[in-house]
């Protein structure tokens, strides 16, 4: 259906073809993904929903190149990720992907600014450029005034904002958010979703977000439902929240 809308020459940003994932072997083997077919275009805001154990986080980790599929093919901009080496996958994460986790995953005892600078450090950017870009990213998520605070000095919402700043400081093609509001109250959750939605709208960053809260999924313009390792439904719609 959406293939028709796409110019034939450019591949989708990501495409999954019959992707499976099995944990363990033999009788104890657990099939987390039972064949996923999915394509996401640049600029989309996709929410992935589903009950616990439905495989949504597994799919997310494979898309984020944090994990590799057991079978099928995953193409990122037409490149088969399963054929890449560990280092090439790391470089793919470094240059094209940004991650936001439920548990923030900031480095402890490290200021927000240094956390945000870290991806740039691995990209080999000079110190002054790192600082400028990191401050700009912190400003974009609204915590420029907390730049020198360490995670333990920040509230949950502020930590997640810092994590988002770290994810977007490299201007990634895609932002992957795994239950970004899972640890936050409703008010804080809405603020975080506003930030993510603004990044999608204003910067055109493709967003893939796992959530089990319909309120949060309402920010997305496409909702994919996972059940038992398969896609049950894939719905496009007008956003109900700006």
């Amino acid at each position, binding site marked *: 259906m959406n293939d028709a809308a796409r110019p034939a020459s450019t591949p989708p940003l990501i495409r999954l073809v019959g992707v499976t994932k099995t944990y363990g072997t033999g009788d104890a083997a657990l099939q987390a993904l039972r064949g996923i077919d999915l394509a996401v275009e640049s600029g989309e805001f996709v929410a992935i929903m589903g009950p616990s154990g439905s495989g949504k986080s597994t799919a997310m980790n494979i898309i984020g190149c*944090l994990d590799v599929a057991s079978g099928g093919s995953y193409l990122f901009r037409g490149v088969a990720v399963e054929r890449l080496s560990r280092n090439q996958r790391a470089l793919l994460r470094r*240059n094209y*992907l940004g991650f936001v986790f439920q548990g923030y*995953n900031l480095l*402890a005892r490290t200021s927000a600014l240094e956390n945000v600078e870290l991806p740039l450090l691995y990209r080999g950017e000079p110190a002054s450029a790192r600082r400028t870009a990191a401050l700009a990213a912190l400003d974009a998520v609204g915590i420029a005034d907390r730049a020198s605070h360490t995670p333990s000095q920040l509230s949950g919402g502020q930590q997640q904002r810092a994590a988002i700043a770290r994810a977007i400081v490299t201007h990634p093609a895609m932002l992957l958010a795994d239950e970004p509001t899972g640890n936050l109250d409703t008010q804080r959750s809405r603020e975080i979703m506003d930030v993510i939605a603004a990044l999608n709208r204003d910067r055109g960053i493709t967003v893939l977000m796992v959530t089990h809260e319909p309120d949060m999924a309402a920010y997305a313009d496409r909702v994919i439902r996972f059940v038992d390792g398969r896609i049950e439904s894939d719905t496009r719609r007008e956003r109900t929240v700006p």
Partner: protein
Amino acid sequence: MMGWNALMLSLKEIRRNLLRSFLTVLGIVIGVGAVVTMVTLGNGATQAVSDQIASLGSNMLIVRPGQRLMGGRDAAGSPSFRVADAEAIREQIGGLEAVAPSVSTNVTIVHLSNNWSTVVTGSGNAYLAARSWQPISGRSFSETEERSGSAVCVIGETVRRELFGSENPIGGSIRVKQFACEVIGLLAAKGQAAMGMDQDDLVVMPLRTVQRRLIGSQDVAAIFVSVAASSSVERAKMQIEELMRERRHIAANENDDFNVLDTRQIAETLSSTTRVMTYLLGAVAAVSLLVGGIGIMNIMLVSVTERTREIGIRLAIGALEREVLAQFLIEAVVLSSLGGLIGIALAAVGAAAGAHAMQVPFLFNPPINVLAFAFSAAIGVIFGYFPARRAARLDPIEALRHE
């Protein structure tokens, strides 16, 4: 990224985890410091013992009544020597430099209001010659003084300090029991002997003076024999034993009732004793190095959970495996080297202070420094690097999930 950035990342990490860094460094400091200090002091003590044995006089034999090698516990039943025995040795055995019959007794000596309890040795110039010991001021005995048993004496540095203080002792007078004795010479200081004996705490008088005025007998307690450098000490020893058995009428099937001590034997015995002591101290110190190493190991392993998550984060945001490893390796090397260097510096200070307090020479020992440093650095690097390597090889998502 690889070089400078990895170094900066490591230094940041060290600063960020000050307590962990401090404990790691401390473990290495204690290990290296203990081993180096102990072995350095042990070597110094061994050296000191050899030096002091050498100062006793080289190629010297001491002939004493009794069977025991040291201490003379069995001396009581054995007859003493006489001056004639010493003369027989001097006349009948060749290749000897000096033969000095001697007798010693403990007395309290007095000069003005100072008194001091010391050992008075009755002997003569031959005794000083045998121990290669000459007065640094004044003179030694004249032949007449030795023969007639004059009330003259040569004193050691300790006696001078205790009795005369800043006064010039030469020509001064000390009272020994009932008689006054003129100080004619001051002996060069020799310092402390093995077992902490003060060699300078003595008064030497002519043999006859001590025999007549202090002991009241013709006994000779020991004969000091100095063997010429060109002659064999072993042969001289055998000849003396033979001669003494003959003079003391010891039958062929009877044991000697005297013994001949070879200072080289004493030197070897004492040196091997101190060497054993050095090994022992070294072993104790090695245990502390090991304990330090286990401490480092603990700290490193305990922090693995936190570090594994950290590695997961770094991998997730695009760090390469080798970049993560370079950072951890540099961190481990920096901490271990820092600890090793501080340990060596502290050991140098500690060993120097210890050597001064124990009055043994401070001998810097490069191999043990290198060895202790290499050992603790290896522990630091192995336990800092290998858990990190395992973590860096995980899939990022596994590392992130690590609890």
